[in-house]
């Protein structure tokens, strides 16, 4: 498998967590259930889904924090599922992670300097002097200026936005090629969110990074990501350029998600939203066929509930896992999103 322009290639990745009762396994939670996806070098890909859709588990699998049950994960051409722990550790130098909660992801007993330096120490990169220079440079990259002032602080002395900046500095300190940002701005206030996302974007351009942006917030994905992948119950149901997907969603699930999100508009209070019924399915016994069919208004009996739909190409660069987009289906019969 050659990597080419892709930094990450997933082939039918499954991550199942066993449910144990005493000594026997009585079932599996199918957190990720057959995901194929490529992440191009230098792009920001948003992985969007509701809680329990498997987006975080998929992110962890890509950086080798969770071993997939089945399937292949290629990172820059190397199948990471076949690597030993030691080789994985080598690979992780090339990967940075940013977590949701900047209040718990930084050690409260470490200064910002020590927290940011940690990846270099663990990976035995550079001597003391070089490490210091790199930490200060990373801090100035994330606009914690002056860097030596912030380096000596402890996390509790910083605001949420500043802590998340420090977390970004730590993620980029080892010059990674790829960053997984798992809900990096969810805990922050609206006025700070945009600034942190802009900063990530700036750093991404500067160093040619690839970012996997995991979020439940479609609206930030629209402005921050190049492409968007929508997950539902462990599967990717729609994939494409973010503006195109959000302005003209193809999958009925994506359409319902977008309908449910209000933009600030005083006219909203005079109308009820069309909301799909039901809850996401159990990941232990997911429905046969398309996982969304029990809630779908375009449900075709004898089709959607029998076989799982593959990803169809519904438009240029657009993929959607839905039988409505099976080839031969005429353009006019397609559901339009108002």
């Amino acid at each position, binding site marked *: 498998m050659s990597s080419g322009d892709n930094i990450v290639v997933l082939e039918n990745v499954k991550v199942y967590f066993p449910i144990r009762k005493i000594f026997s396994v009585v079932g599996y939670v199918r957190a990720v259930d057959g995901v194929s996806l490529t992440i191009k070098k230098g792009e920001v890909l948003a992985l969007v889904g509701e809680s329990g859709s498997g987006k975080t588990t998929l992110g962890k699998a890509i950086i080798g924090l969770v071993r997939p049950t089945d399937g292949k994960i290629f990172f820059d051409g190397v199948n990471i599922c076949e690597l030993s722990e030691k080789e994985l550790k080598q690979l992780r130098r090339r990967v940075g992670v940013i977590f949701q909660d900047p209040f718990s992801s930084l050690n409260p007993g470490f200064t910002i300097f020590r927290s940011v330096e940690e990846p270099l120490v663990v990976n035995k990169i550079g001597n003391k002097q070089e490490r210091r220079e790199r930490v200060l440079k990373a801090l100035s990259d994330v606009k914690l200026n002056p860097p030596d002032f912030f380096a000596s602080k402890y996390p509790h002395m910083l605001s949420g*936005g500043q802590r998340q900046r420090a977390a970004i500095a730590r993620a980029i300190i080892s010059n990674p090629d790829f960053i997984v940002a798992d809900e990096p701005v969810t805990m922050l206030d609206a*006025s700070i969110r945009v600034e942190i996302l802009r900063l990530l974007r700036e750093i991404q351009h500067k160093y040619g990074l690839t970012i996997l942006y995991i979020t439940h*917030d479609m*609206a930030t994905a629209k402005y921050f990501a190049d492409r968007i992948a929508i997950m539902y119950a462990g599967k990717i149901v729609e994939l494409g350029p973010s503006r195109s997907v959000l302005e003209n969603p193809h999958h009925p699930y994506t359409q319902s998600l977008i309908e*449910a999100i*209000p933009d*600030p508009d005083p006219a909203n209070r005079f109308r*009820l939203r069309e909301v799909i019924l039901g809850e996401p399915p159990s990941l232990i016994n997911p429905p046969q066929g398309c996982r969304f069919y029990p809630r779908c208004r375009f449900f075709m009996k004898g089709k959607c509930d029998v076989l799982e739909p593959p990803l169809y190409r519904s438009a240029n660069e657009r993929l959607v896992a839905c039988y409505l987009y099976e080839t031969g289906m005429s353009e006019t019969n397609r559901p339009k999103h108002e």
Partner: protein
Amino acid sequence: MEDNVILDVKDLVLYYSTLRGTVKAVDGISFELKQGETLAIVGESGSGKSSTAQAIVRILPRNVAKYTGSIIFNGADIMKLDDEEFRKKVRVGGISMVFQGAMNSLNPVMRVEDQVAEPLLINMSYSKKEALTESIKALKLVGLSEMVGKRYPHELSGGMKQRVLIAMSLVTKPKVIILDEPTSALDVISQANIMNLLKKLKAEMKFSYIFITHDLGLASEIADRVAVMYAGKIIELGSSESVYLTPKHPYTQLLLNSVPTLRENRPPTSIPGEPPDLVNPPKGCSFHPRCPFAIKGKCDVEEPDIIEIRDGHQVKCWLFEGEKG
């Protein structure tokens, strides 16, 4: 006009004392709530919106340093009531509250219908049978079937639990319901469901809500009027139309621009700087260090009064000094 005001808050102040000093969580705010109307209080974390709710229903932590002002409810100043009277006159059938993330505080070993009936049994001396009838009625009102009442909280989804809490808040037939971030723990689809429910209840039952949120989009789902809070103060207040469509205060304008929109293409912008420290708020207008229009020698010296510019649209900013009307 005046007679349908159900809640009239004047100069409400709530300070906490901490090791670092006095936190001015709510610093002299005034607003009215009319019968059948929804007032949204929006603001970022630490702006004092939840403290305002707690001050109204008098659910306060121990470290309160100052708690003054007047809250006229049902024609009487409830700030003057002692705790026992407050419980009888306000908490029971007066003002009820749905707390943020409270769905995790349902009693796990008690049937849902019994939990919803509890306030009637304890505070309103209903018989067990009457209370259960009322409880089932309330559950039906929030769209849950009688069967759900027989279940235990762990058997319900997050959205259903949130409905149970709303049922609990309206079983005592309150005049005002305060909703503090009632959907913040839910996914967007469940959130839309709950908002639809609140809209229906408002239209059918003429409930008066105070809806507290940090999400301007969500607030626009239900608010007839909006109060924007910053650093313990209301900096802008007006009808939803006037606040969303013609925001006056620079903070409101910047905050609206920082919301990424799905339907329009307008890249969001950020607000420079950090929210202020409530122990040592900036002198003058508390927003001046972040304000692009700050007037040197004025905004950083003297605090502006909140003034009405037209039709109940109030703004607390020196830029509108001349437009008082």
